[in-house]
């Protein structure tokens, strides 16, 4: 990462190691956008290598890509920033397939990247609006556990919602 700004403080670099051994070198300011890493840095202080056994390299890389973009955008105290971030977020989630989306959401959740969790959760929500019950079961791999007749009973209560 090239930080060409004329800041006098040297940026500390952290080494993040994913479950599959892939490592990423990231500026502290970028990585600490993730609550979990922020906590580790504050608690463990001098440790530069952080192992993340619950996230694999592919998804950690994507999470960090998102962090970098947001960290960079936020250094400019421009008013249009919000819009830049929004636009970039849209691009980021646009073409994600369901599997990637789920893994990414779990990774972001594990790393306490609250804003990213929000973004991804909203994306999944937008994909399941206005669906049929069967489609939802399919999407989330859920088997109905209702006894015969029970489901019908529930449907009847709000039959208008199925129209």
């Amino acid at each position, binding site marked *: 990462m090239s930080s060409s700004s004329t800041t006098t403080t040297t940026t500390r670099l952290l080494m993040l190691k994913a479950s599959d051994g892939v490592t990423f070198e990231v500026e502290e300011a970028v990585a600490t956008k993730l609550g979990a890493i922020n906590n580790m840095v504050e608690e463990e202080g001098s440790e530069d290598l952080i192992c993340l056994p619950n996230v694999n390299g592919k998804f950690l890389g994507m999470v960090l890509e998102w962090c970098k973009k947001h960290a960079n955008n936020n250094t400019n105290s421009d*008013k249009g920033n919000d819009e830049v971030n929004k636009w970039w977020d849209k691009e980021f989630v646009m073409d994600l397939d*369901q*599997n990637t989306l*789920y*893994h990414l*959401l*779990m990774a972001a*959740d594990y790393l306490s990247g609250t804003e990213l*969790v929000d973004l991804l*959760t*909203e994306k*999944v*929500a937008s994909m*399941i*609006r*206005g*669906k*049929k*019950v069967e489609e*939802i*079961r399919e999407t*989330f*791999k*859920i*088997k*109905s*556990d*209702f006894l015969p007749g029970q*489901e019908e009973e*529930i*449907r009847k209560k*709000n039959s*208008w*919602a*199925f129209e």
Partner: protein
Amino acid sequence: MATLPWDSIVGILTRLPVKDLLRYRCVSKPWCSLIDGPDFIKMHLNHSVGTSSNLSLIRGYRVLHSVDLDTLDSAVRLTPPINVGNEIKILGCCNGLVALANSSGVMALWNPSTRKHKKVPVSDPNYEVPFGVFDSEMVGFGYDPLNDDYKLLRVIHYIRIDSDSFQSEVKVYSLKSNTWKRVGDFPYQGYKKYGIGVFASNSLHWMVARDHQYQPSFSIAAFDLVTEEYRKISLPDKKVSWDDKFYTKLAELGGWLCVVSIYVDDEKAEASNYVDIWVMKQYGVKESWTKLFSVAPSYVTGSFEYAMPLAYLKSAHQVVLDQDGHKFLLYDLERKRAKSVRKITGLSKCFDTFVYVRSLVGLGGGDGDNNGKKAGENGNKRKKQNQRVSGQKRLILEGFCWATEDVDVVFAGKGIRLRARNL
């Protein structure tokens, strides 16, 4: 294929519209009990309020319509749960529940998003007031977070003809107990007051005015739904010149108590009306009144009689305003200008527009109407009174809804009726 942890699923579901959630109760038992659970209902509500999403407008007198605030494109006709009669009146909206009353005095709490309702038992006015003549009525609807209860307030003001003094009867209906109880009398007697209370910061608010030698003095009367006590709240200090003509209305905007001053200049053309919108950023602190913005006629708005703020869309930094009861004005808070004006086909002019959040909030066990007694027929003598408040500065006292009308109040034995009548 990955399966998501339960917490993630809960997060996703809090972002869905009510209609989807009612359908997805059928997905599985855990989904059904999640969606029906009070914690989820609160999470869903808080998410909608926090992101200003799932908001709708509701309005009408004989026919009720709702409009999705996100799209502001079409009106949907609603089927109210009580007989409309001559007219149906919205008494307030809170957390997705709408309080309604019809012209026979039947009241109900209703969630238009789940289509569930509960009739409010009839509470007869107290006839103990001797020589009392009905003066005016105030109502209000809101939420008491301490007791997790929804409350409907009704104040009936009487004038005692024997002593020319005022008396009031204040009753609070609690959804939880499904009963009315009498609370302390309205303490600001001798004030002109009526209308629908504005709910903000756990309290209901009304404008009250007292005539002092043709110089009306205004303030805000508040009733705290938690403590069930009254208090007065000061209006913002604003410079008023002698020939300023304006009237003041209350509203709620983004959780703040809001004062709207509508300046009228009838000497010039109508085109010079404009509005100032003030919000009390720290509830109860007079110094925290802040002028949020003003709307003056522009090429976007054209001239208008009034504009009342309806909703603050936080992420878009926009405020939606009701312009003259038949158009919707979008105001951009960042650029400080009116952005656009929308007119929605099928909506007729209406002075009472409310905003409700589409929520799953329930009405307790029975969704039916088994708790509602039948409203009484027209009982005793009717006493009609037309009320109008005016003063040197031609300030017009407003509760919430009567902008340019006289208010015609009918006392009909078992129910109080309010009717707005065009002049």
